[in-house]
């Protein structure tokens, strides 16, 4: 199963329609989407605008891979559940978010073994195919992921000092 998530109520049609186009040619692959408040919901896979945190975690757990925006909620969920994640950053210039934060976030996290980044929606389809062909490879991904001890220590020292 592929889980598609735009992370919030804010639609991200550029990503969703790219996956929808890909899905048209792959009726054999189950896809479920969380697509925000959009006038253009996907036609080739089932979707909802938003979901509860529990359902979000469940869909994530069931997924073989996730396609999403480059938001920290999605990134942390993917690391916690060790899921391969394809990210397309939202762009401030297209009013997909307030600014280009996600471009920087994607640049930073693309070095993680579980993560792939595309800069253009036209590359989404090809990258999904590549990732699906390599699901086994992602299972051995060992991205380090822990709250920095130094951050926790600094906060502890501050509240106790």
């Amino acid at each position, binding site marked *: 199963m592929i889980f598609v998530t735009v*992370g*919030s109520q804010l639609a991200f049609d550029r990503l969703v329609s790219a996956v929808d186009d890909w899905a048209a040619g792959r009726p054999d692959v189950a896809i479920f989407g969380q697509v925000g408040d959009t006038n253009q919901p996907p036609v080739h896979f089932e979707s909802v605008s938003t979901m*509860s*945190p*529990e359902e979000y975690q469940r869909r994530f757990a069931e997924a073989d891979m996730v396609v999403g925006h480059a*938001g*920290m*909620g*999605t*990134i*942390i*969920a993917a*690391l916690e559940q060790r899921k391969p994640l394809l990210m397309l950053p939202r762009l401030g210039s297209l009013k997909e978010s307030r600014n*280009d*934060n*996600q471009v*920087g*976030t994607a640049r*930073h996290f693309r070095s993680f073994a579980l993560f792939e980044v595309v800069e253009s929606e036209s590359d989404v389809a090809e990258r999904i195919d590549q990732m699906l062909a390599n699901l086994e490879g992602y299972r051995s991904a060992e991205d380090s*992921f822990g*709250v*920095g*001890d*130094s*951050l*926790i*220590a*600094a*906060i*502890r020292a*501050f*509240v106790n000092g």
Partner: protein
Amino acid sequence: MTRPRRVLFVSSSGGHWIQLRRLRPAFEDWIRLYACTNPGYGSTTESEERFFAVPEASRWNKLRLVRQAGAVLWILLRTRPEVVVSTGASPGFFAMLFGRLLGRKTIWVDSIANMDELSLSGQQAGRFADLWLTQWAHLARPEGPKYFGSVV
């Protein structure tokens, strides 16, 4: 017997909330209270943790901002936490402002999503935060924010 210490975590929904939750190890033996704009998150906290919903707001809707500020102030007065922590955005700013006015210890951990510059709320919250942190080393400044690592 000493009374357990109380911490109030405040944020908006989504990535801010998820980062906030990852700061729990710093407050293991504390009574942990949460305030967030997504009421649905109440069911995801642990049984010994308490959750309060606050109204959503954006910086373009003044009335909603006032209501959100009032809700944050009310929760602070009601729960009397010793420490207030936020990762963003406007509810966190109000938590820093009122927390400081009420003499609480205030901690701002700016979202890791802001790697080019500090968030707007983080810039404004800085002067009310007793501990003002960024999650990016290159954004740290001698006068603050400071950098001690990140939640990932």
